[in-house]
């Protein structure tokens, strides 16, 4: 008589969840105890974290190494500016629609880029993003090469004064990043997540066991694009201006995000947190030395890739076997009278 049950949580994850509550509460209350500068920094951390989680979902789990995610940041930003400006829509509605718009645009894109594998796919997505950037710079109603700005009237829809606006934007960023994280987390814990983890470990093996790899990847690509579009809308709502170069910048929205994920640990949910913190700390420390932090970031990413390809968090997991956001399933023995002679030790790993 086997007496095992499937465990979805770990002891570390339960302790962490309890410890994280006050931190989350402090972050939500930040407008009432902190200053706008720090709030902006935390907001930036939140949206970079969301972008990192999304790229990690794509590359770390679905094996879709895209270097063109800036396409959806730009599309989301432009969608917001176009809907609030020329279409005269309410800013909240526009933000709500920016994500679905980017997701919708990702469908025809996926028909083209999904014909490509590996490196072809990577560069193909980049070319697609360039096509969007060049198109935006040709379309007059999008401000052509110089882009669009948000008018004060649109900003007053959020709040009549500056402080209220800062607070609202900060809370919206926090909420959207939390939403993105929740989507990624729940997706990975769902059936699709199991399929994704299987694809991550071996695509042919998972396909032979009945995983529809194409459909799973397609869903992930579209969901990721929609979430990236939402974050893009939010980013440019704070920047107040969008241009083709800023909106579709590969360095700002993809390269640094890839570095974060790799340094933190690709294929884990904790990795993007760690990587984002490393990035922000490096940038703040080296703010006075121009672009040296980017050079250093590049060097660290190379070193991590060569010496510890599973990143900082991967190293932690190897050593201590902790999981703060468990997405796997573990077998654990149930202490019962019937099963005294069955000895089962908990299985490590996902």
């Amino acid at each position, binding site marked *: 008589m086997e007496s095992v049950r499937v465990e979805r949580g770990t002891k570390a994850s339960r302790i962490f969840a309890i410890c994280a509550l006050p931190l989350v509460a402090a972050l939500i209350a930040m407008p009432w105890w902190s200053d706008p500068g720090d709030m902006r920094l935390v907001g930036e951390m939140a949206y970079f974290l969301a972008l990192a989680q999304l790229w990690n979902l794509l590359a770390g789990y679905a094996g879709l190494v895209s270097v063109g995610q800036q396409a959806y940041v730009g599309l989301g930003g432009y969608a917001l500016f176009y809907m609030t400006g020329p279409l005269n829509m309410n800013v909240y509605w526009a933000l709500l629609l920016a994500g679905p718009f980017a997701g919708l645009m990702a469908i025809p894109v996926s028909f083209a880029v999904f014909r490509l594998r590996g490196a072809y796919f990577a560069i193909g997505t980049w070319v697609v993003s360039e096509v969007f950037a060049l198109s935006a710079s040709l379309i007059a109603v999008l401000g052509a090469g110089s882009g669009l700005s948000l008018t004060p009237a649109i900003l007053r829809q959020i709040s009549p004064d500056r402080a209220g606006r800062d607070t609202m934007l900060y809370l919206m960023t926090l909420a959207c990043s939390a939403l993105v994280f929740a989507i990624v987390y729940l997706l990975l814990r769902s059936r699709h997540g199991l399929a994704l983890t299987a694809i991550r470990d071996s695509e042919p093996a998972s396909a032979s066991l009945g995983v529809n790899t194409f459909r799973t990847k397609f869903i992930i690509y579209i969901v990721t694009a929609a979430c990236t579009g939402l974050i893009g809308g939010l980013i440019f709502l704070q920047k107040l201006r969008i241009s083709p170069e800023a909106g579709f910048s590969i360095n700002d929205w993809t390269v640094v995000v890839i570095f974060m994920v790799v340094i933190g640990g690709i294929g884990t949910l904790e990795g993007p947190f760690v990587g984002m913190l490393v990035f922000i700390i490096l940038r703040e420390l080296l703010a006075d030395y121009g672009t040296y932090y980017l050079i250093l970031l590049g060097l660290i*990413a*190379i070193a991590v890739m060569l010496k510890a390809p599973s990143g900082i968090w991967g190293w932690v997991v190897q050593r201590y076997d902790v999981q703060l956001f468990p997405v796997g399933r573990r077998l654990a023995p149930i202490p019962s009278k019937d099963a005294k002679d069955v000895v089962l030790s908990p299985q490590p790993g996902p």
Partner: protein
Amino acid sequence: MNWINILIQGGLLGGFYALFAIGLSMSFGIMRLVNIAHGDLIVLAAYVGMVATWYTGLDPFLSLVIVVPVMFALGYTLQRGLLNQTLSGGLLPPLLVTFGISIIIQNGLLQGFGAYDHRLQEGAIETASLRLPGGLSIGVYPLVVFAVALFAIASLQLLFYRTRLGRAFRAVSDDSDTAELMGIDNRKLYALALGIAMIFTAIAGVLFGIRTIFAPSAGPIRLILAFEAVIIGGLGSMWGTLIGGMVLGVAQAIGAAVDPTWQILAGHLAFLAILIVRPSGLFPRTRD
């Protein structure tokens, strides 16, 4: 004839793109290395050429005497010291390491030379042109670049199909494990391959620096153009890369004829269209 003019100018431009693409095509074909830093290495070569002309007073063409060995040595060391370690673990390691190199080169150049535009001055040849019957006129410089591209590809074909080294290159490209069993030192051969690829990158960089202004941020678009030429032509086929470059050049010329701002966009769209119809390019030789 306007259309003939567009075809000729586009085709000549394609020679330029083919020259960009040779180094990428080689490292892709032989070691399946996706070199994201390729465009930045082209720009780096242009800067090396510029510094060489500053210190020696050589004219840009002759500065290749310095640029070529420098880039060869850089390619050899990069592959030997860094990139060889990335080739066994799937797509991500080489992609990310070369991404890192790309960022380091871009920001290194930015720190060293500032964000300003630079240019290599070659004098009269830049603007000279040949008059042809029918009112056509062809720039001498694009013609020279095209000839260099033809010569470069022809010499690479000779290397690949007429020498022991070339045989070894083809062997590791087809099956690196078996090649190693036959006594080939893959790591050394890969280093040599990137070294040789960088000779062509050096030539491409200097010729690029003479043709247009360049800045530290000029790399990524060169990478995309080179990549498009390689993919349109089909992996592993050098003459295919030339045709790919010319297809790209003609598409851009047609776009530019409609409206000058459409040039690059037309090239990208042609690339995507060809990919959708023929995902492995027009003349594929190597199986990925």
